[in-house]
């Protein structure tokens, strides 16, 4: 749906993006990761046509993106705010109409969302009377109100308490079900694992890691497994094929072992060796978390 081909962008003095390419498939949630200052915000601004790339192109549904396409994009920036002195309802209406909605449509949609989030009573409050979390809710609504095809959320969960973060997460998933394509930029790796199908990791203006989240995690496998059994294993019982067994503190009388195998050995080979020496209750591969992969990749 969204295709970014060889985009580079230079600011006076430094390169913000260098030959960045990525493809966001339709109806999916795409993670855009990277440390602070890596160039994520620049990339997002280019997609939003706030700035243009120096070279390369951005295609939306196969066509070069134009400022008019911004009407079909919803953007929740990381640095976000509202006019403090304006009333909530008035402001939401203003932002909706800037996205090309008619007054009546906008009012209807706002009523729907305000009821959904149970914030009808805020309509005539001034923004400065709202707490940060409350303002974030209003901002989220104004971002999705015009039913954009493409939704760009930059740290959508920051500022929310766990209850409201869950509410927003549910809405994001519901939007994807309805066919919205979502780009999620966040430092919260747990939500990346939970929500995103694909990611791009940008570091120092380059893409350093890209692909399907599960595939990336498998590719970064450290060949470590968690074994639960009622039997007791000696640490050196599989030393002949370089398998390390580290006992963990067991729970419920089960013994837990972390097992590290050499890369040359397949999972099944390991399993068949283990079957010979104990009764397995459970056996699972410990995949590295996105958090670990992030830190490892960025600090390389």
């Amino acid at each position, binding site marked *: 749906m969204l295709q970014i081909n060889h985009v580079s962008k230079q600011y006076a003095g430094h390169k913000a993006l260098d030959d960045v390419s990525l493809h966001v498939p339709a109806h999916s949630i795409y993670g855009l990761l990277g440390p602070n200052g890596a160039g994520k915000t620049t990339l997002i601004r280019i997609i939003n046509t706030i700035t243009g790339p120096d070279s390369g192109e951005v295609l939306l549904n196969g066509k070069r993106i134009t400022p008019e396409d911004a009407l079909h994009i919803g*953007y929740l920036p990381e640095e976000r705010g509202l006019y403090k002195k304006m009333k909530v309802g008035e402001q939401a209406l203003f*932002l909706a109409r800037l*996205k090309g909605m008619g007054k009546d449509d906008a009012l209807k949609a706002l009523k729907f969302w305000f009821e959904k989030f149970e914030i009808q009573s805020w309509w005539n409050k001034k923004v400065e009377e709202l707490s940060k979390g409350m303002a974030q809710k209003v901002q989220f609504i104004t971002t999705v109100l015009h039913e954009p095809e493409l939704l760009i959320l930059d740290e959508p969960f920051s500022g929310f308490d766990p209850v409201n973060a869950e509410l927003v997460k549910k809405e994001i998933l519901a939007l994807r079900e309805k066919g919205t394509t979502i780009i999620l930029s966040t430092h919260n790796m747990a939500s990346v694992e939970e929500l995103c199908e694909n990611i791009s990791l940008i570091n120092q203006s380059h893409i350093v890691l890209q692909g399907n989240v599960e595939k990336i995690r498998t590719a970064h496998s450290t060949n470590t497994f968690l074994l639960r059994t009622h039997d007791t294993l000696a640490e050196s019982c599989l030393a002949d094929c370089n398998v390390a067994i580290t006992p963990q503190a067991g729970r419920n009388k089960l013994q837990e072992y972390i097992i590290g195998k050499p890369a040359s050995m397949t999972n099944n080979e390991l399993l068949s060796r283990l079957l010979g020496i104990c009764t397995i209750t459970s056996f699972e591969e410990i995949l590295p978390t996105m958090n670990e992969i992030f830190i490892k990749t960025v600090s390389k």
Partner: protein
Amino acid sequence: MSKIGLIIEREYKTRVLKKSFILLTLLTPVLLVALILVPLWLSTIKADTKQHIVVIDKSGLYESALKSNDLYTFEFTNRPIDTIRNNVQETSELTGILYISGNLATDTAQVILYSDKQAKMETVSYLSGLLDKYVEDQKIAAYNIPNLREMVENSRTDIKITTVKWDEDGKEQESSAELALIIGMLSAFVIYMFILIYGGQVMSGVIQEKTNRIVEVIVASVKPFELMMGKIVGIALVGLTQMLLWVVLTVGLSTILGGSLFAPSDMGELQNMAAMSAGQSMPPMSDNMAAEIYGMLSGYDFIQLLVMFVLYFLGGYLLYASLFAAVGSAVESETDTNQFSLPLSIPIIFALYAAIYSAQNPDGPLAFWCSLIPFTSPIVMLVRIPFGVPVWQLILSFTILVLSFAGTTWMAGKIYRTGILMYGKKNSWKEIWKWLTYQAK
């Protein structure tokens, strides 16, 4: 409605509906009218208090000159001054003691007014007026020439110079240099105030949007240039609204209040009071005076003046507002604006000074050049217009102004576009130059 329309609407509505705007817009004309009418009104009240004056006339010549009337009562006595002085302190109703020591026809300085408070200018001029007239009559009578009185009256002259301005068609227009000066300075000063105030509003509006972090949401929907122009135009409309309301309210209020406070019959008395309290031996204003002022006022083409005022206000405002917007976009908070806004305020303040000097010599080289330079022309030209400016100069000056504001707006747009999205950085002039010369695709 297009998006720039939405932005203009928001800027306009939020500002015009603000309590401070409504209060200021409504109260200023009230204050202005009060400032003019209250002193006049007070001067009519003042006349009601009765003045009691004890006269010690050593010469014994002036009892018939000082006759009691509604406002002044004169009491003649021969008691020594010290005893009366004690009484003065006891009876506060006594205004003062008029001590006449000799014949005023030979020595005019032989009158002293004693009082325990500073004697009012009005009282003094009334008393000296009475005595003047009496002594004058006495002198005239002493010549024993028939009809001398009339001859003296006839010989009094009051020369008035009427200034006439030729307009473009060679037609004559009665004009007044003072009036032109007042009209010119007033409009120049109003433009000066509006550029500073509303330019400042543009700047703080931009800073607010930037520090609120709402700007990124908005530029995702509209072009930064549209946002900037929307803000500038919206605020200009606020300024025009305020100006219009001020004019309408001031004229309306002063007509209504002025009409009801001072019935026409009071007007003559009012003018006398004004003349007296000024302590001048001005002849009472003739009824023609008002007509004369009216005639001079109608000598000005007010429609032309108003049109030029609005045009130059808009031109000057647009020129500076876009620059103020650029400054707002380059800074992080209102406290950082000084280093950038100073270069903007200096030409505006300079323009005001140039306008003051130009008013004294509206066709001099300073006035000429400053009314062509776009950074000073909106203020200086307004001073010159009531004195009459050749059409080619008006056209040239306004063309330069329009071209310059197109230029500054374009330049400001470039700075603004980059500036509003730069967070957490203090920017230098060097940095801004980079934004300006940077070629974005």
